[in-house]
């Protein structure tokens, strides 16, 4: 993969002081937003769901903000800049998956849940073990995704601030962690959402401006941009077609199909995306927000395609790979080439804000799941005081922040888009089957849910552990070449783990002889499609 952690490369871009200034400005602005938007955060609905008072377009942009992580902005553009077309394949999977969220998930989910994914399963099955399982998988997926973001932060910021050496990078990761804990503690869901909206807007604007800039260098001619890009790549016009990264052997081809499956099915299982569906007053606004998200995400990815090819042309793959952060540095380097130190600083700060905001979104999701599902639902059997529950959520946020910092320090140097691909595979196998089954399959029962969640989770995670990601390849986490337990040849477990999870959900259900609870399924369906009895929305 592209993550060559060239720490302390002989290499500075921009002026660290200027970059630091722009950074500090962004951090202060977002902090002010988080604090002023936070409001009271007295009830759990305020803290977890922003009072359910956001409109469709606000939430749509915020979901886009949550989704357009550093992996999208930096990672995909970087893969395009180095491998060309194969990076484009990522962005298509990331986008198409939203149709599943739009048509099958958004409205039923909003109508049948309160704060977390486990609420939906609980309404259908009323089983504490299922709630526990859903919480476990929510926490696992969120932590994995967090790790990906934190891994990106260290490499990126060291490039931007001219931080040399691994101690400096670790320090940066720690600062990111502390800032994001602060957003979540002070802002709750409302503050975090506003940070998300502001960040998504700046990110989209920044990408659009840079894209137009790149196009103008090519005389506003797409074929000319492609020609220049291909001419400056060692692979020539081959970068304009698929296969440079994934076409090497049958294994890499299968790996790509596995990734494609994980991307298209994973979006609908991402807990931090699902939780955002609760921040709007009703199912109709949830639907509207997903349509907004699709437009934002789609147009943004079209920009990253041009940015990637632009970076290939104007910066060159060799220089990108040599930079700290590898492929992830393609867009900042492109900005430097186009607009000099100022644009570089702005793009870099946007990327930093992106990481902060996504990390905050993930943290609030994970802490909500722990406080609402584990503490209030399981420990206190649904009898927890709201103030207590929020206190637990805040403590959890701090703990998760610390875990993320430690994980991020360990994971730095791994390609961000790639790590996110793994998180998608886990989400698609652990979460999606039980969500779809409980919404649409009358027979689905407790055993089916437990088997599909734990089965999917364990299959996905263990396949990753026994894959070349962890050992046995030059890019593995364990760099010692003598340690090799990579029994599973593919990097992405999706193609195996997702079908296994669906199968286990089915098997568990049909082997359980107890009759299905048709009254609960009827309530589920009536609520899902009509909104009867759904959680009421708040006022803006």
């Amino acid at each position: 993969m592209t993550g060559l952690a060239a720490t302390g490369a002989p290499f500075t871009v921009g002026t660290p002081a200027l970059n630091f200034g722009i950074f500090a400005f962004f951090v202060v602005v977002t902090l002010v937003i988080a604090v002023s938007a936070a409001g009271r955060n007295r009830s759990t609905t305020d803290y977890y769901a922003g009072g359910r008072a956001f409109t469709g377009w606000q939430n749509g942009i915020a979901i886009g903000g949550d989704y357009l992580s550093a992996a999208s902005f930096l990672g995909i553009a970087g893969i395009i800049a180095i491998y060309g077309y194969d990076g484009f394949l990522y962005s298509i999977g990331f986008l198409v998956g939203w149709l599943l969220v739009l048509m099958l998930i958004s409205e039923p989910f909003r109508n049948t849940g309160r704060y977390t994914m486990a609420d939906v399963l609980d309404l259908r099955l009323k089983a504490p073990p299922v709630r526990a399982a859903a919480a476990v998988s929510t926490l696992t997926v969120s932590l994995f995704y967090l790790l990906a973001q934190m891994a990106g932060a260290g490499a990126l910021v060291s490039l931007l601030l001219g931080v040399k050496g691994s101690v400096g990078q670790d320090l940066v990761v720690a600062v990111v962690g502390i800032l994001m804990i602060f957003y979540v503690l002070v802002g709750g869901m409302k503050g975090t959402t506003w940070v998300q909206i502001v960040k998504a807007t700046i990110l989209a604007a920044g990408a659009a401006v840079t894209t137009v800039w790149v196009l103008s260098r090519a005389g506003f001619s797409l074929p000319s941009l492609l020609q220049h890009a291909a001419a400056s790549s060692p692979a020539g016009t081959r970068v304009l077609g698929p296969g440079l990264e994934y076409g090497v052997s049958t294994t890499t081809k299968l790996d790509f199909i596995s990734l494609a499956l994980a991307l298209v099915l994973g979006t609908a299982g991402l807990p931090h995306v699902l939780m955002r569906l609760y921040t709007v007053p009703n199912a109709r606004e949830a639907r509207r927000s997903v349509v907004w998200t699709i437009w934002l995400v789609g147009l943004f990815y079209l920009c990253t395609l041009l940015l990637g090819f632009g970076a290939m042309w104007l910066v060159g793959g060799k220089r990108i790979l040599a930079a700290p952060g590898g492929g992830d540095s393609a867009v900042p380097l492109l900005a430097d080439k186009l607009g000099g130190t100022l644009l570089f600083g702005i793009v870099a700060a946007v990327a930093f804000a992106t990481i902060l905001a996504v990390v905050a979104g993930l943290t609030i999701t994970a802490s909500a799941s722990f406080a609402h599902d584990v503490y209030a639902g399981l420990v206190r059997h649904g009898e927890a005081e709201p103030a207590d529950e929020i206190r637990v959520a805040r403590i959890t946020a701090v703990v998760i922040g610390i875990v993320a910092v430690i994980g991020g320090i360990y994971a730095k140097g791994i390609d961000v888009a790639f790590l996110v691909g793994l998180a998608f595979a886990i989400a698609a196998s652990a979460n999606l089957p039980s969500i779809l089954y409980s919404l649409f399959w009358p027979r689905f029962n407790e055993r089916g849910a437990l088997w599909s969640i734990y089965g999917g989770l364990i299959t996905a995670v263990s396949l990753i552990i026994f894959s070349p990601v962890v050992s046995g390849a030059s890019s593995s986490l364990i760099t010692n070449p003598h340690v090799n337990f990579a029994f599973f040849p593919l990097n992405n477990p999706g193609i195996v783990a997702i079908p296994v999870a669906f199968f286990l959900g089915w098997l568990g259900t049909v082997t359980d002889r107890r009759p299905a609870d048709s009254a609960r399924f009827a309530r589920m369906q009536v609520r899902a499609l009509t909104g009867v009895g759904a959680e009421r929305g708040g006022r803006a």
Partner: protein
Amino acid sequence: MSLFQPSQGNAGSTASYQSPPWGEISTGALPQPNRTSAIGYEAVRASRDFWTIQRRYGSFVRPVCALFIIWYFLFVIIAVFAPGFMRISVFGDLNVGLCFGVLQFVSTFVIAMSYRHWARRRLDPLSDRLRHRLEGGQQQ
């Protein structure tokens, strides 16, 4: 698996659920459904109005989901196993693969907008009507 299948079979048989205390479903006002228990929902689910909503939702969502998933995997399979096809030039360096990829974006936008449009026109009025009746005219 009976994904989106309307519960047609239950509609006629009162034996499969407790007959609702408020009488026939499709006429008259219904009491507010209970938030904490699932009692009464089976009758609603068996009602003609709900059946219509369910069938209509399925009739759009089922084929469209199948279509976009097939369309996406067609793209993935061609990209992986027939990269030569993707490299065929359309206009200069603009090749089939890039056009195909951009078409995936276009189809996603089109499907999203048409679902939104369709749901607003064909689904929302029905589900609104049923919800208002079930909630006994109480507005949110």
